[in-house]
């Protein structure tokens, strides 16, 4: 029986170079190494097109090609009969291959030599398991499907977006042994992603931002495609992504740079998976490891599925929160706390907020905070509903799909991490309470 392409996915990790044979119109064969054979779907692979070379010339004239793959675990050899179909010079496939190639190049000491010009897509006409010796594969880890199944009840049991994210990140640790992970939500109006939850870092990095389109996380978001890199790849580091963005963009002042990004300084494996729900990008689930080749195809399958679950659940929970809480319960009369007043400064230009001299937050979360403390001071209110924030045009929420709940989580976490005398607590579905332990003195700075 012929193996299926799916059964050979381990051969497409770039761990072992593959060989490619083509033939020119005069009948002269040509053999070359290919750094990357990429699995596209059960009947297609893509090869990296990096140089205008003999192979390129040959396949454009004669689309027949043969590739030889070595299984990185069993040493079995497979021969694929290929037919060149097209070249994709951009888009999700191109970006996934470009990122992977960066990892392969770095691993093989070829950084700077490899530059992806296109993803050459080939139809797989035949797969031949070449006769030969093999070695037993290493014991397979626990089935990712079983791990995913074990995680599902935790995800389904979440009653708000905050607990959904906590449960998801805890579950990744418990079920998948993934201990460095974060969730970022998209701010599409500003073309950036902000961190709302993380695990495994000395600083949570809640509130830090990554521009869409930059670094592995930003590229996964832009092209809505999972990106997996098996080795260190400096060009996909966040530090560089953010720095280049700042140098290049007029939006630089809008990007949250005061809060450092939580990622590992030198990850050797990275996997970024877009979180999509109702056809919209909601964010990115990003995991990483100091260990090379930590994440397999199976991990990618599982995390793509998990991200879909998290996306749907977060959307449903957000909507539920905004439907509930319409009837404001009897407003408790808040007492003015004793003590010296805390100066709260708000800069309208970018909605940045400072508590005393300490920077807190900016952007939409900053605008929300400013509205809340104003209501607390001027209207003596301490309870609020998600719905009233949603309907408040002065907040200028980017659009109706914006994840308001995530903004509140961000604000809540930042206040908690700064140990501010102001905190936000849940007060039932779609409701929350502002607790203030010092008098507030508000100053709107232009």
């Amino acid at each position: 029986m012929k193996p299926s392409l799916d059964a050979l996915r381990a051969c497409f990790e770039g761990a072992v170079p593959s060989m490619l044979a083509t033939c020119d119109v005069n009948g002269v064969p040509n053999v070359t190494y290919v750094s990357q054979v990429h699995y596209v779907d059960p009947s297609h692979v893509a090869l990296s097109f990096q140089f205008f070379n003999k192979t390129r010339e040959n396949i454009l004239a004669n689309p027949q090609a043969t590739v030889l793959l070595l299984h990185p675990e069993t040493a079995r050899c497979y021969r694929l009969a290929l037919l060149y179909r097209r070249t994709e010079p951009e888009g999700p496939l191109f970006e996934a291959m470009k990122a992977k190639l960066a990892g392969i190049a770095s691993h093989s000491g070829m950084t700077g030599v490899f530059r992806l010009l296109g993803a050459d897509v080939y139809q797989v006409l035949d797969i031949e398991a070449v006769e030969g010796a093999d070695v037993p594969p290493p014991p397979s880890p626990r089935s990712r499907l079983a791990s995913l199944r074990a995680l599902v009840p935790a995800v389904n049991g979440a009653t708000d977006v905050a607990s959904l994210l906590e449960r998801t990140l805890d579950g990744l640790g418990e079920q998948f042994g993934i201990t460095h992970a974060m969730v970022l939500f998209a701010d599409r109006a500003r073309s950036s992603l902000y961190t709302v939850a993380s695990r495994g870092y000395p600083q949570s990095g809640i509130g830090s931002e990554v521009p869409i389109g930059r670094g592995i996380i930003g590229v996964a978001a832009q092209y809505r495609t999972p990106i997996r890199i098996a080795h260190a790849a400096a060009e996909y580091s966040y530090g560089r992504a953010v720095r280049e963005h700042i140098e290049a963009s007029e939006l630089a002042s809008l990007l949250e740079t005061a809060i450092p990004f939580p990622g590992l300084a030198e990850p050797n494996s990275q996997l970024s998976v877009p979180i999509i729900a109702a056809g919209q990008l909601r964010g990115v689930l990003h995991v990483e490891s100091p260990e090379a080749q930590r994440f397999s195809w199976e991990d990618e399958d599982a995390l793509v599925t998990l991200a879909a679950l998290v996306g749907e659940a977060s959307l449903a929970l957000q909507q539920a929160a905004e439907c509930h809480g319409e009837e404001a319960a009897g407003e408790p009369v808040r007492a003015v706390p004793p003590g010296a007043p805390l100066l709260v400064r708000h800069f309208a230009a970018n909605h940045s907020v400072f508590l005393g001299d300490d920077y807190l937050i900016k952007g939409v979360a900053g605008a929300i905070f400013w509205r809340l403390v104003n209501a607390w001071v001027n209207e003596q209110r301490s309870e609020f509903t998600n719905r009233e924030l949603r309907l408040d045009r002065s907040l200028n929420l980017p659009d109706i799909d914006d994840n308001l709940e995530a903004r509140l989580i961000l604000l809540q976490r930042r206040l908690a991490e700064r140990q501010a005398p102001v905190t936000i607590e849940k007060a039932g579905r779609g409701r929350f309470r502002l607790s203030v332990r010092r008098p507030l003195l508000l100053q709107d700075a232009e």
Partner: protein
Amino acid sequence: MDRQPPVPLDDETARFLASGESITLGSRDVRCVPSLIKAAGCRVDAALRRVRVFVDRRQARQLLADIAATRAVALVVSRPSTHHTLQVKGNDAVVEPLRDGDAEVAAAHRLAFARELVPLGYRRDWTLAIHEFPVEELVAVAFTVDATYAQTPGPGAGARLEAPR
């Protein structure tokens, strides 16, 4: 018939072809569909520009049939630790039985392949399995080197090393 004596392969090329740890041989059928195989070792006669490459018959049915039909071959020899790679081509390839010493060359190549790859992080049993050929299944593909090309990955890959004769 006026036959020019062959220009010998330069020493460096001959030495590299004979010592390369990773060897791949390609051919094509009458319809220009390429075939491809990992080879088990290589011997070089620099003066005659002759190369003999050993392949496992069981793995090379298509390639051997293609050589019988078209005699066209492309041979790539590489050193994985440095990526240094050469490609040579010929159009007079024939399939021959092994000669004295060929089996020993194939056995030595298998060990050299393992020696080269283990420091790069490959498992030794894995590297040995790749070239675990029963001697009785090995045959030689012999051809005259018609052209040599630099094939080390990068923009210079594919450059012809000798002027066409």
